[in-house]
């Protein structure tokens, strides 16, 4: 088992679907932050077989809503003094803005300058989001 220092203050993003860690790294703009970040890929998981984990030190100021859009099964542990002080279970957000872009070439968002790329939850059970402008479903796969 790979050993990575535990986080003293920060957060641990757990139960990430194996292979999705880098996607989340970019969604959360972690590449632009100067805090320590550890990415663990293909860790053993009782629930999923294998999973990814991201550990972030000294930074709690993030838009977790976005993570619910990417994968609502992700859990977030807030760490202080090396102990978990809070656990956040994510849910599907009603709306997401400027996270992903509509892939429909006929959508106004493909040409309009400075438009807010917005998706709204259309079907909670099937986790279907639709572009607010053209109703095209966003394929999360």
């Amino acid at each position, binding site marked *: 088992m790979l050993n990575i220092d535990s986080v003293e203050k920060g957060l641990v993003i757990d139960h990430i679907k194996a292979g999705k860690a880098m996607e989340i790294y970019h969604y959360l703009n972690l590449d632009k932050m100067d805090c320590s970040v550890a990415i663990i890929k293909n860790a053993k998981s009782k629930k999923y077989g294998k999973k990814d984990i991201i550990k972030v030190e000294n930074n709690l100021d993030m838009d977790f809503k976005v993570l619910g859009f990417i994968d609502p099964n992700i859990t977030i542990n807030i760490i202080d003094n090396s102990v978990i002080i809070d656990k956040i279970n994510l849910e599907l957000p009603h709306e997401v803005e400027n996270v992903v872009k509509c892939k429909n070439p006929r959508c106004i*968002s493909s040409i309009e*300058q400075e438009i807010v790329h917005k998706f709204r939850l259309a079907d909670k059970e099937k986790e279907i989001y639709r572009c607010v402008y053209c109703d095209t479903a966003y394929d999360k796969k």
Partner: protein
Amino acid sequence: MLKGKSLIEPMDLTLAELDEILKLADEIIQDPAAYADRCKGKVLATLFYEPSTRTRLSFESAMLRLGGSVMGFSSAESSSAAKGESVADTIRTVACYADIAAMRHPKEGAPMVAAMYANIPVINAGDGGHQHPTQTLTDLLTIKTLKGKLNNFTIGLCGDLKFGRTVHSLIKALSRYENIKFVLISPDELRVPDYIREEILMKNGIEFMEVERLENVIGQLDVLYMTRVQKERFFNEADYVRLKDSYIVDNKKMSNAKNDMILMHPLPRVNEISVEVDSDPRAAYFTQAKCGMFVRMALIMKLLGVE
């Protein structure tokens, strides 16, 4: 209250608001002269980024018959869009000159963007293959005028149900009325999109059936709504040859339809309704075109808050 609102998709309207518009349209039909100067001094901008005959002319005719004036453009080439101007900038400029705007745009969602930036009501006059709410209002007014109700009937929608935006909007709008049964008639490759079937029909427990041939079901219908099936939409020539005649209404097929069925079509038609059917009293498509003007008159009055 509809005053100041925009109409981007049919579901923007509550059932009460929809009924309010249809009721006013009916009153205008009864006495058009009484409404001849209700919009005097008001200006409608028709912003048509792609060509249209019926929709643009019916909007212009509607405003002129209300005593108002009309300005605008009828192609993107004759507007600042040709110079690369955004929809947001165009509408904010137009809003300085007009009291209300109708917009047709090839990009889906463009009228919604316009409505977000405008301080005047914006009416979606068709955005790509997406929505065409005033066609839906037209269709509802036609059914209400000719059948006397918007509930308890069986409607057949026939032709290209996959790409036909008028069909999608009409299904959504009718799904809110009681006891409407849908018969969806199309070749397999042109069936309604999954989201219409799953998120509208199945989710709301609405009775519907999907069939391939019109001649097998025409006798069950109270309303038949035809749309055009283009040859290039078929995956193969063999299917096209096998099915093409099934999507053409002629006197022979009409002889098996109910005596009080109404035959609708958003127009323009090509060959999906034979000219011989035009003289059949059940042919409603030109009445439909007229209803389009009256319902736009009612809509303009309501959105402007004109009494």
